[in-house]
């Protein structure tokens, strides 16, 4: 690994945290004494619940029926901390929980789009404040989704794009992209390395988080 002077690296490390939009809004609006932001309280419950779920899953997979190859995750998925299709891996990356919470809030309270368009190219060309190019993710079933528009947002304090899609059935799907930064987002599965996205479910919604082409991406939609 690349060695740097202690002071330089420390400065980077100790100034790398930012409040997300929700946290900032909560602190800015003048909270009542002693009242905690429900978002970060819920994060603790969620983290605790997921840790418990992971422990139960571990027991089931490794002790109850070790010969069952169908449910035993492969070595590579275990190494990456990701068990396909199971709500868990954020226990190895707490920032995934925070990303999911932020994405979910953005999904539930869908704000006015900055542009209304059906073209990813147009989003890419017109969103010139981003420090990355908006891509058509390989993970999205573009044939069954119609792009309605896009807006600027943030993910963990980094500038991001929110794309709003609609399925043939009229279901809203939101998709998020931001430049990937390991310090900020933690280790996330890269689908170009055949790793499966992190899948979390909360409040009737499913959130998927993954890395693709140097971007962190997320998708939120109602759990069907």
């Amino acid at each position, binding site marked *: 690994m690349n060695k740097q002077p202690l002071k330089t690296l420390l400065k980077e490390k100790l100034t790398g*945290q930012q409040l997300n939009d929700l946290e900032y809004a909560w602190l800015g609006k003048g909270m009542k004494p002693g009242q905690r932001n429900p978002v970060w309280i819920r994060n603790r419950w969620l983290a605790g619940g997921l840790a418990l779920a992971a422990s139960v899953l571990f027991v089931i997979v490794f002790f109850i029926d070790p010969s069952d190859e169908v449910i035993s995750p492969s070595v590579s998925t275990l190494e990456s901390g990701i068990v396909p299709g199971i709500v868990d891996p954020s226990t190895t990356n707490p920032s995934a929980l925070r990303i999911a919470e932020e994405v979910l809030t953005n999904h539930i309270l869908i704000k006015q789009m900055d542009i209304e368009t059906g073209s990813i190219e147009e989003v890419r060309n017109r969103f010139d404040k981003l420090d990355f190019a908006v891509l058509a993710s390989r993970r999205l079933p573009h044939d069954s989704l119609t792009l309605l528009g896009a807006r600027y947002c943030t993910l963990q304090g980094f500038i991001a794009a929110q794309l709003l899609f609609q399925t043939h059935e009229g279901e809203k799907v939101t998709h998020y992209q931001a430049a990937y930064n390991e310090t900020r987002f933690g280790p996330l599965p890269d689908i170009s390395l055949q790793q499966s996205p992190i899948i979390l479910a909360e409040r009737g919604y499913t959130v998927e988080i993954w890395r693709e082409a140097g971007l962190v991406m997320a998708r939120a939609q109602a759990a069907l």
Partner: protein
Amino acid sequence: MKRQMPFTRPELDQLFNYCMVLCMDRDNALDLLQDGLEKYLHQSSTDVLLPLAYLRRMLRNLFIDQQRRNNIIIFESLDENAQFTANSENDIANMLVDEMELDRILSVLTAVEREVLYLWAVDGMSATEIALSLGQPRGTVLSRLHRLRKKLVQDNPASSGAAYE
């Protein structure tokens, strides 16, 4: 009457980073920042000369109170045998580390030691300025730097004395 938030977003981020240095946990840092802001908005008049520094002092005191309430000792006695010198500061500045080593180092430091590192690396303070800021004798700060260096070298012998200039 509810007072308006007197801090900008970058300032709140800066304060949040300071809380993270003390707590090493995002949720606890958010709680500490919220408690500090509440207290600041409730107590302080509008003509505080250095609001950021004032609030940071409040956050520090709140953190220490919380630790005491939880019976967590964060202040260690000084190492009587520590041979600290003014060079301790330069010795630390000359160390080379990578990110993994830094994470490991931070995980074994106490809150007080992390705070000294924060003031030194982020605020760019000298040992004298850190001492003034924390209201402690300069020798105490130098002793902390000396012990920090000892911990860093123990954890990462290859970095010892590696000058980068």
